[in-house]
């Protein structure tokens, strides 16, 4: 009887490990292929490779639209993330600290943009910006700041979600302790509250930035002539050509984002807040 139980437990563990392995492979395999492909020598992707080369990485720099797209995506991502923090952190504080009517619906509303399909969000943004443009008679659609405004909407859910999670682990009494020791509400916020939710803020900013940087669907509606983000540049390139340049661009992206995550993880343990 005992040995049967041991076998069953072992079989259970194997099944679990196996399932986890399959899931992991499912996620990683496309990435591995993309990375592999970036080093193929031949122009048409086919297996097995005829040889290996780094020329596709050099090819990225030769194409101005990749460099410009990268630059635009980066600037939009940074600005949208900063704005998202300024709006999202106070929102998270309110949601956790105050009990008011419509708190539940408001919390859901702030998380909504990650749930709504990007195309729907993009259409809504597009229509809204056209309306604003017509009513105010100023250029809105296609401008840099209108694009940033759209991205702020998809950054906020990450900030709110991760800062909320971080706040839940903070003992409310530490703020009272600070006030008891002579710190007013403002000093308490800067010196006590903010540092204790820093992991949530950093993680929220990171994920918000990554989301913004990789966003395609919404950006498609909001970009103007001559102003295209990196994902759009990639899409447009793919319509004409399939060569490993795209794979090389993806590798650069993966390295940048992965690097940012590793760097962040050194200062705040992402596993603790996500």
């Amino acid at each position: 009887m005992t040995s049967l139980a041991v076998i069953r437990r072992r079989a259970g563990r194997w099944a679990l490990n196996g399932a986890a392995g399959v899931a992991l492979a499912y996620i990683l395999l496309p990435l591995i292929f993309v990375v592999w492909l970036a080093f193929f020598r031949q122009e048409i992707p086919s297996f097995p490779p005829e040889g290996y080369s780094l020329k596709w990485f050099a090819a990225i720099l030769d194409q101005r639209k990749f460099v410009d797209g990268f630059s635009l995506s980066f600037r939009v991502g940074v600005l949208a993330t900063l704005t998202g923090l300024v709006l999202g952190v106070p929102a998270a504080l309110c949601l956790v600290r105050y009990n008011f009517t419509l708190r539940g619906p408001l919390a859901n509303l702030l998380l909504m943009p990650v749930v709504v399909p990007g195309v729907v969000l993009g259409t809504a943004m597009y229509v809204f910006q056209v309306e604003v443009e017509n009513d105010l008679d100023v250029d809105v659609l296609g401008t840099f700041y209108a694009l940033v405004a759209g991205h702020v909407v998809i950054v906020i859910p990450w900030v709110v979600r991760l800062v909320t999670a971080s706040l839940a682990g903070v003992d409310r009494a530490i703020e009272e302790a600070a006030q008891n020791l002579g710190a007013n509400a403002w000093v308490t916020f800067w010196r006590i509250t903010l540092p204790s939710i820093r992991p949530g803020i950093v993680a929220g900013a990171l994920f918000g930035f990554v989301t913004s940087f990789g966003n395609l669907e919404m950006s498609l509606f909001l970009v103007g002539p001559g102003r295209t983000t990196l994902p759009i540049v990639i899409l447009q390139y793919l319509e004409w050509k399939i060569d490993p340049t795209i794979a090389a661009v993806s590798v650069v992206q993966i390295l940048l984002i992965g690097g940012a995550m590793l760097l962040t993880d050194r200062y705040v343990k992402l596993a603790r807040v996500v």
Partner: protein
Amino acid sequence: MARLDIENLVKRYGDFHAVRDVSLSIADGEFLVLLGPSGCGKTTTLRMVAGFIEPTAGRVLLGGQDVTLLPPWKRNAGMVFQSYALFPHLTVAQNVAFGLEMRKIPRADIEKRVEEVLALVRLGGYGGRLPRQLSGGQQQRVALARALAIRPDVLLLDEPLSNLDAKLRQEVRVEIRELQRQLGLTTVMVTHDQEEALTMADRLVVMNEGLVRQVGSQRDLYERPADRFVAGFVGRSTFLVGTVEAPGRFRSNGGLGLACSGGMAGPGVLALRPERVEIGPPIPSGPLSGLDNCLPGTVEFVSYLGALIDIHVRLSTTDRLVVQIANRDGGFAPDVGQSVHVGWPASAGQVFAE
């Protein structure tokens, strides 16, 4: 240090009265303990003194100055929180220095004061550690040091020992009390633990349902409880329900006629301290026969506590009494089911009108 006066303090949340009408005066250097079950309003009272809760009515005076409307950061009250509330991202020294920095004290003086205070709580050399690297007892002492560093007018302790294990708690009680005496700190402590309250306080305040039930010394509360609640909350009492037939005559609902001291005619309860009741073998002419009350009964339950033994004795269908005896060699120690006699003098029983 300063005296603290609480005048007719009231806190209402809608229809709920957290604190009904509390007035207390705490003398300079006095250690006052607010004792009561959870939800009795003791913590709300303390938090109103600290300034975290705005009272619905009443005043708080610190050193004669009305601080009722001042925000917490403008009152010079040092508080030790139940969870200690140490700043997790700051070192021990930075935690202790925080209040001093808020007071814009020069850096060199801050360092000196931090060292002094840490030495006072026997944590010299721990300044560079983070709170999470300390044990619970050490964290508690950092919290105390942090509150003491600002030289508060009044020290407020909110269940400061409830997160410590039993053995450490006993040590820290004495430590805090000695420190408080040595520094002459005006102190208000909130606790639900009566043993803690009795060992630490100069004076105790028993609260229940937002009201002060009794204020007095340990002896006052134990020997002369003001009402049935205090009699049951401070120490233990067995309550026999019945009627006071005449002053000095009590009849339980189970039909026992008992001698008691005082009381007004009418429905009431007779409270008896378990250790004031004697127990002996069922011999009518035994040593208990000289007492005002001497009754036969049956042992229903015995709990052996080591130094003491609790014996639950059935006196009638509705009356049961707890007798506590010292565990002595050769002492009378009945078993469950045994017939016994219990007895007590009339003065041991206190009657409260119901």
